[in-house]
């Protein structure tokens, strides 16, 4: 049970997540995103093995963003109509404004929770493989994504090495942020040159192993099974329940 979301077909999951996000965009009451957020977290608690510490850390910037929306809507937003709830100094907050502020900030949380659910339960390689098998994504495109994913750690080391080498020439460390920014620009060209060289080598290596971008067989077959439909319905249920808030809230 605790692996269900990890094992869900990535393309189906992606479809469910995108569908939810699109649907939520049309609901402006604060209850729908709140319910949806709780529902998503509940799903993730029940059906996944999430590192919640890491999750909280990833959630933090969104939380700050949500608070920002809340605050700016209250302080700078159109006062709107309706009764004034309370007044702080020169700022008076109306009921309409209060609701709008909650709605905006909770939407941020709803969108980020479902995106994080996807990110935390999906391996990039499986996602790409699934896109290739279920949605006929072109192998050329799919493998360029996969290979760039492999290059990330390589680029990180290269970036560090360049930075270290430039430090001995007296750029970077200890100087003003502006100077550090111009130093970063100097890293750009060698990094790009390195990337082009690496990309060419990788392309050669792939072609030398008979990769042509044509049809191919698949070692890791990624299927859609009954369990994927059940999970898809579960997502839809959470979405429907939270959307129904417009009738009773």
């Amino acid at each position, binding site marked *: 049970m605790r692996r269900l979301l990890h094992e869900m077909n990535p393309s189906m999951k992606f479809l469910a997540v995108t569908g939810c996000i699109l649907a939520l965009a049309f609901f402006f009451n604060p209850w729908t995103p709140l319910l949806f957020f709780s529902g998503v977290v509940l799903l993730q608690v029940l059906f996944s093995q999430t590192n919640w510490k890491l999750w909280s850390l990833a959630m933090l910037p969104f939380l700050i963003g949500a608070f920002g929306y809340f605050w700016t809507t209250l302080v700078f937003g159109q006062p709107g109509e309706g009764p004034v709830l309370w007044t702080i100094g020169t700022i008076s907050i109306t009921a309409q404004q209060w609701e709008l502020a909650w709605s905006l900030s909770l939407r941020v949380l709803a969108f980020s929770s479902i995106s994080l659910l996807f990110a935390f339960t999906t391996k990039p*390689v499986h996602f790409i493989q699934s896109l290739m098998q279920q949605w006929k994504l072109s192998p050329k495109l799919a*493998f360029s994504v*996969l*290979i760039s994913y*492999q*290059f990330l*750690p*390589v680029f990180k080391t290269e970036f560090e*090495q*360049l930075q*270290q*080498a*430039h*430090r*001995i*020439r*007296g*750029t970077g460390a200890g100087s003003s942020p502006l100077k550090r920014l111009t130093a970063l620009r*100097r890293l750009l060209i*060698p990094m790009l*040159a390195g990337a082009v060289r*690496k990309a060419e*080598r*990788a392309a*050669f*290596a*792939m*072609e*030398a*192993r*008979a*990769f*042509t971008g*044509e*049809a*191919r*067989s*698949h*070692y*890791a*077959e990624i299927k859609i099974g009954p369990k994927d439909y059940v999970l898809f319905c579960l997502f839809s249920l959470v979405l429907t329940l939270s959307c129904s808030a417009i009738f009773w809230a």
Partner: protein
Amino acid sequence: MPVRNPILQLDGFSFRFPESVEPTLRDISLAIHEKERVVITGPSGCGKSTLLYVLNRLYPHNCDGEVSGSVRLFGRSAQEYAPGEANRKIATVFQDPDSQFCMPTVEEELAFTLENLQVPREEMPQRIDQILHLTGLGSFRHGVIQTFSGGMKQRIATACALIMEPECLLLDEPLAHLDPLTAKEFVAWLSLLQQETGLAVVAVEHKLELWSSFFDREISLSENGAIQQDQAFTERGAPSLPKRVSAIRQEVLFEAVGISVSKASKALLQNISLPLRSGEVTVIAGPNGSGKSTLLKVLCGILKADKGTISGMRAGFVPQSPEQLFLSKSVEEELAYSGNPSPDTLHYLMKALDLKTIAHAHPFSVSHGQKRRVAIGAMLADGRQVLLLDEPTAGQDQQALAELYRQIESRAQDGCALAVVTHDMNFASSIADTVHLMKDGILSGPHQPEELFSNSALLAEYRLHMPKKGDIYAPAFA
């Protein structure tokens, strides 16, 4: 010798890149036969790698090169093959272990090859098992490729090539990024594989001493891209360099005492002390990952030491790719970048390092040897008379090594102190005044080169090999 069929055949083949005036390959005629082990040699830039890419049909397809003459692969003209078709029979292993993989694990990477060949899914597990068994990589099946060493990556790349069941294996300087012992282990492993599979092997290589008697035939190209010689291969030692006359002076320019560095509670360097005297050339050797590069970076102040003191002159650092240091648009500006040198010093350095002719060239566009001279010049111009060179010998051909040797020699005569990290024990034995060995972050030494290079047990402990002196101009016929 039994009659062998030619599998790859070039006839009067010439090749010119669209952007260059002169052809890269001129009038090449050769035939590679079944089960043959051939090495292609020649100076840097003579077109060895281009020739290899013609043999596996990556060229002229991918570069719009201008071609004359014919290429026949397995009796068919290369033009008749569909893209990727020829690569099923002719597999290739490349030089850079970091840019030939596209999947995370060994198993998935092997499967990638099979998927390209459209092998039915049911057959795949069996073929993967087979190749893992053949190559002895069974226990690494689920290993993450990016976490492996360079030597391991080259073995995996070879396995990924062999799983196609090719008839010919091409290798493009496969040892360039490996330390000598790892390289020799790779060659021995490859030799067994070749015997078992009966492949033809064609390699581009200039470090022939690492291959001992692996090859049976050598095709050497001349500088202008024509075949110079096509003959039986003879085993040889490394090109010999003269023993340098020491220029040590008594003055200690630089001294590090008790340096320790740890990262994430893992000790990278432990209690290292290293004095460098004026005119002294110190070689630091040891296996990959032993902390040599980290040490150099600490000595020149790029990284901070947790413990220990560094005194004396500031040290300059020349990385394996010297262009990593460059910040300016011309060689002249590069030397003047620090703003310290007087016009006289600058003038002297430009002359001493033979940079006058390229003063206005972009530092990224000059040759590798010139780049290194520019980097050394930039360090000296910044008043760093202690030079730390990280792996300057890696991937260098004979001519480049000779130039490096002269460069180090004249800097030592000028009174600089030099520390050189290298795997090349032949080079080390001719250039070093003092040798330090490094393993697991611990530095041992100073060793006297004469004593050290006759102590094979100590060398083996540090994954180094004895220097094998030989003369390329008089190969020993066994």
